[in-house]
């Protein structure tokens, strides 16, 4: 046991910092109803800022630290508060995507501002050690960190428990409008909690960076560790979150005693994600209930003002309703045929590396389509879709052979392997939705990264694995043009299948799941089977597309399929239009634009632009295509001939009710007066 003491000390040290992060995450969820996925990015950004102040501009710590904690971090907090206040009333899904977008903004802005290389940050506290007991050395920095975190945690807890601020917080959480009515300044309350949370993040960054190294990725990942303790506290309880963080730190540290590489170290890195996944499933419904106070807000989105505007165009026009019945509307057919023709002609004008990039974009669009189906139609948010792409790519890498002669078989096997994995990711969706489902799928993706894809036998390790271009039915698709045509064909087939499904019963079944699971179940939909099926099918499709992804890149390594790839996919799909097939195509196009050779001076701004676009999506949750379509429709409605307007005024047809005279007379009077009047009174009751 004596050998374990040093690891215990390190564990408590690490756990204290996780604890700060967990409390910061819980605080804003408690008070503003926002789970801040960008928390790690704030920590990272603040640590970089501290490096700039302290190491690059040589300010003393006495000046740099107050500047960071007193000015920079609070400003970031206030910016968050402002942004998320405008999102009150949107669905959980939008809030998740926006906070993931902010994460991407920070990740792409930090290298532009502070340079891309990994920095080393000096320790805030002296590194000398003192002896505890006989042989145990404890660093002053460790002791100081533990004390600071404990003091801040206790202070925050007392603030929420014993002061008017705490009372006001609870009032705002309970009912924002009501709290405002009895004189609580709801905005001030959430502003203060965002500021505190963001200061905690800055501390986390400054305290963790000396031991973890300061770059764009590490802190973001390490802060994700703290999500598990935050969920343990049900995103409500600070003491539970803190205790969970300490336990997590100690368990991880003690495990590291048995090895810093190999299987033990993989498990050590996976423990927080495993804990997160298991906790979410075990706590399940209870989490959803504790979050229910925030749910009524989400309802408003369906009937928001812009939704009303949109429907104005479609209002009570019988010709439109007939059009809906048609299987494949003509404009859509023409548009799709035009795109396909343009795609077929493209190789004439474009060749070499550019065509390779466009092919990648098409493969990416196929992958994006699976997320459109899963998230946009079925309403099941997933942050793990690229894990399935990885499954497909590595399966093909192993089985397709050097010349790709077994490619098709290998791709199908890859898709079949993805089915049970899809069901596994689908399991949390049986009990969770929205935020918690996003967290569970994120945990799954990180587990795949840390337990499966790191294995050299699976993925060829960090040097990666070669994937042959396919050879199908005796035809080789090795050349750039041939592979491009294959990618185009696969996307066309995926898109056609998706269109057919969307317009038919399958599409309706999926949307029932998204819009009202409860109503769906009381109408006869088996929720369990439907959810698992959609996760499995989308996983299999992504894996199949992953085979092409591998063949397109020719060499794949685990980093291609890391959690961040799934994140980028979600952002691009949301930006394109998460519930439209054309949205997937736009996502693919945006991906290709990133690859296309662009002057390096501009290139690094592209991810930032995309991320900012996503954050801006708060205003237009349906994506680019919907915005464009809305503009076109507005222009068209101005150009419309006059008589349409007259036609609209016709009253709806009256109800025929002569068939049952025996029963009707009692009510006839009331009915007679109501003809066509039902529901003309606006939205008052909803």
């Amino acid at each position, binding site marked *: 046991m004596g050998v374990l003491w040093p690891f215990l000390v390190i564990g408590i040290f690490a756990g204290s910092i996780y604890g700060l992060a967990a409390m910061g995450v819980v605080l804003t969820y408690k008070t503003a109803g926002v789970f801040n996925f960008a928390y790690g990015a704030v920590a990272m950004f603040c640590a970089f800022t501290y490096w700039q102040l302290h190491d690059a501009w040589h300010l003393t710590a006495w000046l740099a630290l107050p500047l960071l904690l007193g000015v920079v971090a609070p400003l970031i907090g206030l910016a968050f508060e402002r942004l998320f206040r405008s999102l009150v009333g949107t669905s959980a899904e939008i809030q998740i995507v926006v906070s993931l977008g902010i994460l991407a903004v920070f990740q792409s802005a930090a290298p532009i501002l502070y340079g891309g290389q990994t920095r080393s940050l000096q320790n805030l506290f002296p590194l000398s050690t003192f002896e505890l007991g006989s042989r145990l050395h404890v660093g002053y920095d460790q002791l100081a960190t533990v004390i600071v975190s404990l003091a801040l945690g206790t202070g925050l807890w007392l603030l929420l428990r014993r002061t008017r601020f705490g009372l006001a917080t609870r009032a705002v959480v309970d009912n924002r409008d009501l709290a405002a009515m009895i004189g609580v300044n709801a905005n001030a309350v959430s502003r203060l909690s965002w500021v505190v949370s963001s200061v905690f993040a800055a501390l986390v960054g400054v305290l963790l960076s000396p031991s973890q190294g300061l770059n764009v990725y590490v802190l973001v990942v390490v802060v994700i560790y703290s999500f598990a303790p935050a969920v343990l506290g049900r995103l409500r309880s600070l003491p539970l979150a803190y205790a969970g963080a300490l336990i997590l730190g100690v368990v991880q540290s003690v495990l590291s005693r048995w090895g810093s590489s190999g299987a033990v170290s993989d498990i050590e890195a996976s423990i927080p994600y495993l804990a997160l996944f298991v906790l979410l499933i075990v706590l399940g419904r209870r989490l959803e209930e504790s979050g229910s106070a925030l749910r009524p807000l989400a309802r408003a989105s369906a009937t928001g003002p812009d939704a009303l505007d949109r*429907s104005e165009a479609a209002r009570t026009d019988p010709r439109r309703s007939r059009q809906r019945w048609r299987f494949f509307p003509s404009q859509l057919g023409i548009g799709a045929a035009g795109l396909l023709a343009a795609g077929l002609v493209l190789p004439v004008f474009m060749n070499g590396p550019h065509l390779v990039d466009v092919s990648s974009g098409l493969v990416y669009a196929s992958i994006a389509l699976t997320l459109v189906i899963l998230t946009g139609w079925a309403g099941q948010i997933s942050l793990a879709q690229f894990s399935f792409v990885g499954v497909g790519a590595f399966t093909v890498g192993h089985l397709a052979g050097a010349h790709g002669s077994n490619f098709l078989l290998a791709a199908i096997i890859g898709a079949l392997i993805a089915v049970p994995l899809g069901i596994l990711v689908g399991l949390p969706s049986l009990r969770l939705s929205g935020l918690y489902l996003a967290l569970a799928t994120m945990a799954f993706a990180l587990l795949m990264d840390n337990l499966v894809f790191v294995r050299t036998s699976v993925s060829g390790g960090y040097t990666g694995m070669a994937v042959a271009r396919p050879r199908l039915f005796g035809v080789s698709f090795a050349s750039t043009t041939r592979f491009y045509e294959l990618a185009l064909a696969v996307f066309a087939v995926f898109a056609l299948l998706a269109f057919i499904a969307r317009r038919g019963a399958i599409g309706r079944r999926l949307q029932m799941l998204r819009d009202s699971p409860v109503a769906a179940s009381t109408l006869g939909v*088996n929720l369990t089977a439907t959810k698992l099926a959609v996760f499995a099918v989308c996983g299999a499709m992504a894996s199949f597309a992953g085979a092409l992804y591998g063949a397109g890149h020719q060499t794949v390594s685990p980093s291609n399929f890391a959690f961040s790839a799934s994140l980028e996919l979600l952002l691009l799909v949301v930006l394109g239009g998460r519930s439209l097939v054309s949205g997937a195509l736009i996502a693919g196009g945006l991906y290709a634009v990133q690859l296309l050779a662009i002057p390096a001076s501009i290139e690094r701004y592209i991810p930032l632009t995309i991320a900012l676009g996503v954050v801006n999506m708060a205003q237009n949750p349906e994506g680019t295509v919907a915005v464009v379509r809305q503009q076109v429709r507005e222009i068209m409605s101005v150009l419309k001939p006059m008589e349409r307007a007259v036609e609209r005024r016709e009253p709806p047809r009256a109800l025929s009710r002569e068939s049952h005279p025996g029963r009707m007379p009692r*009510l006839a009077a009331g009915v007679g007066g109501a003809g066509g009047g039902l529901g003309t009174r606006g939205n008052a*009751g909803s």
Partner: protein
Amino acid sequence: MSLGASGQAHALEARGISVRFGGSRALDGVDLVLRRGEIGGLIGPNGAGKTTLFNVVTGLCQPSSGSVFLDGCEITSWTPHRRARAGMTRTFQRLELFARMTVQENLLAAREASVRWAVFGRKMRDSQREVSEVMEMLGLAPLAARIAGDLPTGQGRLVELGRALCSSPKVILLDEPSSGLDSAETSRLGAILVEAVANQRGEMSALLVEHDMSLVMELCDSITVLDAGKRIAHGSPAEVRANPAVVAAYLGTEGGSSPLAGSTGMRAALGGER
């Protein structure tokens, strides 16, 4: 409480239903009977347990004791979707529309969820005809292409009713169909319901929870009255109206000191029932 006049099992029957939420009893040994082809009413002061009873009957909530029968077949442990496939469907007090689908898609989706293989060939055409008929009957045809989430409450309630009718139900449960409607809209809804039930000639029954007493008295063939989780009366509208216990329960709400005095607390406990 005997079998129906024809000797067949009742369309819907619940026996001795009890539900506890924490320490409080939301329902305490409640019986409920709905005969074939009738419109039944379920009334009671706020917090009496009406919606809880609906949730038990449709399977959204498991009773701690008691049994539910559909057409004489015990369904107490069935999942909601299995009950729906067996012919039971419901509407919701707070609208649960498929908000981003059109009205027509709402109805079609309901039809497809309840009829096996409704997706192919003849059955698909049948589905589309059935949906068109229901929309025609409810006066929803002009709204077919509207997005359901954009509709005002009154039309939304009609869509929910239409959705329920499209799933060709044997028993249809309506949770406060008139809430949020004005009196003209309410009577129109009542007329539609009467017509729909009559159209099915005894193959369909309806049970409604309702606060609008005049609507209940007009529409219903029989009425069950709940108070504080117990059934205090059952019978024809005339019988119920004359029942002193019912009068006491309703007048008691205004008087303050009554058997209902405890019901506010219970109502708070039931806050999470939906």
